[in-house]
């Protein structure tokens, strides 16, 4: 299988590289590269909103990035994370989280290719949660223009006034199309060309944490407008591009919602339940600098006695355990000095496994993946 990876990667790159702003060679290089710990961790965090699960470390480390992307992008877990990110973008969180079947079914429908990302956004904006979150004509139309159509409201006052009238049931041409209801306000915004541009721009920035190349953006827009289900392919290109490699090398601050999931996966080996993740995310979001509460949460979880950690005395090979923790939590091996510090901690009677884990998850490096 490994012998076939470069060929597969090259094919992948040639196929995807046409007219995207990246050369086929660049994409092929990224696609065929063997996954190191850091890249695997970042890919999982960005695409699935969590680090790799224990079995994923076993499965993917050292294999081609293209294989991982082919298996991950488009999966149910991927779309579930995508959906959560969209809800967060629209601030449909806490009491405003959609609870209707039509919205809850979105990740499954996307995974089964029963709907496109554009249709998914349309469904979200038609939900009663979106309406409750944005009460009144002025607020609703402003948010639709800003968050869906991506327009600057100060330069779109005329459109705002038309939209408010359409929202109230009057007939009018809103964003270039006739409308006469609140639902038409949403439809016209979702179907506008600017909404595709805005969506791709913000998605690129969410995943790569930089602005997209101005020359590449129109190509992506044209492609998504022509092939509504092509979003996954665009993502694969982005994740094999030099810009993604630069993002991995640079590191980015872990968002609170990713931190919560990472903490559970890295310490408990499992995803948090909704009733564990949301209250903690909400509490962390309540602080401009969540560092103290992240640290406190980690310590409470570690001291809770609810984690299935091995006993220090029973560790057959402490160095191997430390190396494994560095790889999984920081995506790299420890330096010689760091290894010595960790082993000294474990050697001392007062040093606990929890203490070392606490040091790692409360480090700036862990919080910047």
């Amino acid at each position, binding site marked *: 299988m490994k012998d076939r990876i470069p060929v597969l990667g090259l094919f992948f790159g040639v196929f995807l590289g046409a007219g995207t702003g990246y050369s086929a060679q660049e994409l092929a290089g990224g696609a065929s590269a063997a996954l190191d710990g850091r890249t695997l961790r970042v890919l999982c965090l960005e695409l699935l909103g969590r680090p790799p699960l224990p079995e994923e470390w076993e499965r993917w480390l050292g294999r081609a990035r293209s294989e991982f992307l082919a298996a991950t992008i488009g999966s149910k877990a991927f779309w579930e994370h995508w959906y959560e990110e969209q809800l967060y973008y629209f601030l449909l969180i806490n009491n405003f989280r959609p609870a209707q079947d039509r919205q809850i079914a979105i990740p499954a429908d996307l995974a089964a290719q029963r709907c496109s990302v554009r249709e998914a956004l349309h469904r979200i904006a038609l939900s009663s949660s979106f309406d409750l979150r944005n*009460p009144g004509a002025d607020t609703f139309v402003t948010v639709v223009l800003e968050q869906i159509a991506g327009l600057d409201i100060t330069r779109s006052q005329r459109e705002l006034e038309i939209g408010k009238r359409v929202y109230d049931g009057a007939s009018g041409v809103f964003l270039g199309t006739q409308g006469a209801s609140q639902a038409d306000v949403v439809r016209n915004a979702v179907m506008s060309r600017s909404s595709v541009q805005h969506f791709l721009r913000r998605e690129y920035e969410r995943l790569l944490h930089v602005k997209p190349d101005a020359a590449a953006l129109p190509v992506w827009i044209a492609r998504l407008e022509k092939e509504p289900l092509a979003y996954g392919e665009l993502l694969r290109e982005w994740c094999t591009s030099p810009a993604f490699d630069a993002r991995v090398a640079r590191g980015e601050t872990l968002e609170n919602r990713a931190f919560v999931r990472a903490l559970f996966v890295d310490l408990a080996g499992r995803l948090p339940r909704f009733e564990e993740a949301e209250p903690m995310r909400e509490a962390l979001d309540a602080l*401009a600098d969540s560092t103290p509460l992240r640290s406190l949460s980690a310590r409470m979880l570690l001291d809770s006695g609810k984690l299935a950690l091995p006993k220090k005395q029973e560790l057959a090979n402490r160095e191997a355990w430390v190396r494994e923790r560095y790889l999984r939590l920081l995506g790299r091996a420890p330096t010689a000095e760091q290894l010595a510090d960790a082993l000294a901690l474990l050697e001392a009677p007062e040093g606990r496994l929890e203490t070392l884990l606490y040091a790692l998850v409360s480090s700036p490096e862990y919080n910047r993946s």
Partner: protein
Amino acid sequence: MSLDRREFLKWSAAAGAAASLSGYLSAQQKPGAQKAAKRKTEHLVLIAFAGGVRTRETFGTPANVPVMVSMAEEGVLFPRARTANLGHFGAALSIFTGNAEQRGIRENVRGKDVTLFEYLRKDLGWGPNEAWIATSGGAQQVNYAYGLHPEYGPQYGANTLDGEGIFNREFKQLIETWGRPREMPPREKELLQRVRRGLAGDAATQGAEQVERFLLEELTRGTSDLTGANASDAKALRVARNLLTLFRPRLTAVVLQDADIAHGNYNGYLEVVRRNDAAIGELLEAVRQNPQLNGRTSFLIVPEFGRDSDLNSRRGLDHGDGSDDLRFVTCLGWGPDFRRGSVVQEEVGVVDVAPTVCELFGAKARFARGKRLPGLFA
């Protein structure tokens, strides 16, 4: 980390005193600091009475806000404070930057302008625990802490704490399930520090540790249990009260939000206004009862904008008609350096608040478009 109440108060007092002293000493050395007039104000509570609150339901109906009315009798009222209908987020941010801030209603990113927290902390050398902001509007409002101006930024930001977010009941239950973290013996702490130094160098964590202890104490108090129409605002005001009495920061800002219930519930909106006035009364009383705050603490209270003149079809009040009810709000100043029983009829702006606060402490809001509030200082 078992810390009983007495110990905690002792620790907080010491931490607060140390922070105040270091802030004071730093201020003496900062060349950027303005030569301030001799002021009695050592602490300021700045309340953005936000969520969209018309003067009609506050000073226009004194029975709704007896606390603020009594404060007005001892302070200064600006009934013609101009606002901009920029959405709650942008409009409230304008109070802190001194510039009209056009921000998306649901935009969850920081502004480009410098906040008053940054001016004060940079110019006066205030420590990290000297400026706090307690909010009630969720994730978006933590963006008030600092802006993205290259000369300022996060290192000069306020500690921001969203009452509703951090004191959500579910998180409290989670913490109760996990239990308090164990006290770390000195030797274990030493080993931990060694690993930490190897990972991140000698980055100071002292400030974060203090906040960590404060949070643990707050999380186990009754703040999470507050309920009612103004539950989120009540939590923000409770947090502000506890911060003020424990840390005694120089600046404690509060951003309220529950009044926005008015879109669909006019009576609920009135209830929020009344309850928030009462909660401000508790905060004021806490200041009066504390000898280290009484006579040294000032208040500025101002909505970010008002609401429409007429009820909407749901018998609620939106904010988008461009009326004077929406565009003008009433700003209140109360404190030892302010005039007493004065009403300034001159038109001012909510953007004047930030420069005024900076001047009060001896800093200059050099990128703000607002000006010092006229007729405020005695």
